[in-house]
């Protein structure tokens, strides 16, 4: 028989049987073997695994600095060399959900082992950490503990089995969220289905035409309207920055912006860039920009305008990203990051954004 899996379990002070809210400032401590819900966990695991240690921390203590505490907790977890890590379940507890999520993120990233938790859909830990952990869906009270523990163990066993998901084209070890009752992890995958794309489409369109209910495969987002800022007065004195999502980067692409689904941006000295550059963008053909980057980013015109005194000055740094099939959420974040950088530089009064 295969060796038993070594399991470490994370709990807060309450479930870790240290005490209630009055003990929420307790620091990290480790108990050998299972504690509290860990007993149910151990029972559900049977001889497939052994809860070797329980890492406990007070909710208040953890919430003071989740990332730093996760680092400390990780050391305690790692010293027990686990094959599998459980946290919680946290149910509807806000601080506890963040602690469980942060612990899962740190342990998963560092040790590369499956990390499983359980949460109620409305807690902040779910949205913050769903990407990093397998979080089983729970009710909002601990009454459903046995069922949640069952779900968590079932999911964990599926993950450690290394079984390939045959419904995925990629055949990854990635169980279906609906089948294993966990929150999807912000991943999109092609999945085999019984009906062809064409069959589904005609069927649904017929329902729509008949005025019957139909289900769209995607519920489209509603984008917020961004009002344009007021115009810049006295352009003659304004320092202006240039930004583009056309993928113009220094030769060698030092920040490794991707041609597609890029998540990064870079800040480059314009003079150096214009001497040696390349384009990293799969969404348009790059030939014309490679021939003359001014076609994408109007360095030439801006220099002329500055010479003529029509603008104050061109900011010497160009902010560049590659916007090709990047999800809008990340585009917004990059906008915020570039905006913050521009503000930090203090002298820039306006920016021109060019796109492809």
């Amino acid at each position, binding site marked *: 028989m295969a060796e038993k899996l070594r399991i470490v379990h994370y709990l807060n002070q309450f479930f870790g049987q240290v005490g209630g809210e009055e003990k929420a400032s307790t620091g990290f401590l480790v108990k050998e073997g299972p504690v509290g819900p860990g007993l149910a966990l151990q029972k559900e695991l049977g001889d497939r695994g052994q809860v070797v240690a329980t890492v406990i921390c007070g909710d208040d203590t953890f919430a003071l600095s989740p990332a730093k505490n996760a680092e400390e907790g990780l050391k305690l977890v790692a010293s027990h060399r686990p094959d599998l890590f459980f946290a919680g379940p946290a149910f509807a507890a806000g601080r506890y959900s963040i602690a469980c999520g942060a612990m899962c993120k740190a342990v998963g990233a560092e040790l590369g082992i499956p990390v499983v938790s359980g949460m109620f859909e409305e807690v902040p830990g779910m949205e913050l950490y769903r990407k990093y952990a397998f979080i089983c869906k729970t009710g909002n009270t601990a009454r459903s503990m046995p069922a949640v523990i069952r779900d968590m163990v079932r999911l964990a066993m599926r993950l450690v089995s290394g079984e390939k998901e045959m419904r995925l*084209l*990629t*055949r990854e070890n*990635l169980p*279906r*969220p609906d089948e294993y009752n966990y929150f*999807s*992890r*912000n*991943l*999109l*995958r*092609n*999945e*085999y*289905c*019984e*009906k*062809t*794309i*064409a*069959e*589904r*489409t*005609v069927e*649904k*369109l*017929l329902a*729509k*035409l*008949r005025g019957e209910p*139909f289900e*769209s*495969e*995607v*519920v*489209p*987002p*509603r*984008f917020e309207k961004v009002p344009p800022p007021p115009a810049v007065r006295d352009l003659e004195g304004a320092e202006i920055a240039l930004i583009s999502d056309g993928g113009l980067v220094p030769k060698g*692409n030092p920040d*490794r912006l*991707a*041609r*597609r*689904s890029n998540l990064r941006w870079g800040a480059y000295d314009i003079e150096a860039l214009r001497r040696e550059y390349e384009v990293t963008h*799969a*969404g*348009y*053909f790059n*030939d014309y920009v490679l021939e003359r980057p001014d076609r994408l980013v109007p360095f030439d015109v801006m220099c002329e305008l500055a010479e003529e005194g029509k603008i104050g000055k061109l900011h010497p740094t160009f902010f560049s990203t590659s916007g*090709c*099939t*990047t*999800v*809008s*959420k990340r585009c917004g974040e990059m906008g915020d990051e570039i905006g913050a950088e521009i503000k930090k530089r203090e002298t820039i009064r306006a920016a021109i954004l060019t796109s492809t």
Partner: protein
Amino acid sequence: MKLEIESIDIKEIQSGSKTHAQEGVLYVNLKELEELILKDARIKSVDIHLVYPGQKVRVLNLMDVIQPRCKVDKVDADFPGFIGKMQIAGSGRTRSLQNVAVLVSNPCTNRKENGVLDMDGPIAEMSPYGKMNHISIAPYVAAGVEERDFENAVKAAGLKTAVYLARGADQHPASKVEVYDLDIPNLDRKSNLPRVACYYQLYSPQFDHLAISDPCFYGTDVHHLMPTVVHPNEVLDGGVVGWLAIKALDTYSIQNHGVIKELYRHHGKDLIFAGVVCAVANMEPAARVRSACMAANLVKNVLGAEGVILVKITGGMPHIDLSMAGEECEKLGVKTAIFTQPLTPVGTLSDTILFNAESLNLIITSSATFERTKISWKAEKFIGGTAETRVFCPDPIDQFAGDPVIDIEEYLLPGVLDCTGNSRVIVKEY
């Protein structure tokens, strides 16, 4: 317009002294086929292989996959405008060979993104082509021939091979006959069934190699195509072919166009198939608006459709043309079903939508074309390239066909995904 496709089920292929089919076996005179291909002075030489499921073979630099077909009752009418004389495709009788295809490789290509098909292992499992017999051709360029000109020669060689094989099977009885009969001018106007059209996006110039568009419609490129009404049979019968690169689309899938065939299956039962409007993705805003308005007008006021399915080509940008056409259709009261292709593996489905139009409320995922998959499989033989042939990956890494693992996007694996709607694939949140 009536088209009869007479299918012959080919169970096996073998080389033989005469190209013919007998009891489900297709015999191919490889010498004669080679001579046919080499008649084109742009081609110096050609490698021809018979390829079978289960072989440890990796076929590289794939440009197209073509179903062997020929016209039975017309002269010089195969793939009109490409290799046949220009005439309208889609009527009369066509012989079609099932379970066999022509794999067209361009070993001299300078394109970065080229198709890959394995005849065993994970790719063969994923692709219907991994379970078929094939005649693989890989032509080499003659001295002095320009790159794009040679690509057209390779494509023509593939189409000629497809016709040659189907012609050779002329003595074999058909195992079934599919009839595509749609008399659009006289469609039953009294019917209570809804009239449904197909908006078929043929092409997007965003990937143009050396800034030249690929011919794909009656022998011409369609860079500036105005929305055009075509009879669905023209699409099925060789009026439209795949690009000079595989992008979740090839000639085989167009010859068996998923949405067109599905609309035919429903025609007269619960809908009336009103016809097809072909359009392209445009590079300029004005052209997009023009194309969207014209397409919607053709759908509504020329074809008289109440519903339309908007079929998308690969790429991000084509979403814009597609959704603008869809919005214009909805404005005219035509109910839409629109395809989308989530292009990133991260996010929610809703995050991936590239348009903001409340009226487009029926969105179908026609696969995540750029999904990446790691293929761990070792070929013993390479066709159309070598173990040193580069395999495209969007990350700045070098990988080669002989590597123990290749990290590849699924749109480059022919047959795995299909823009025309034949794949049994849906995109889900995980």
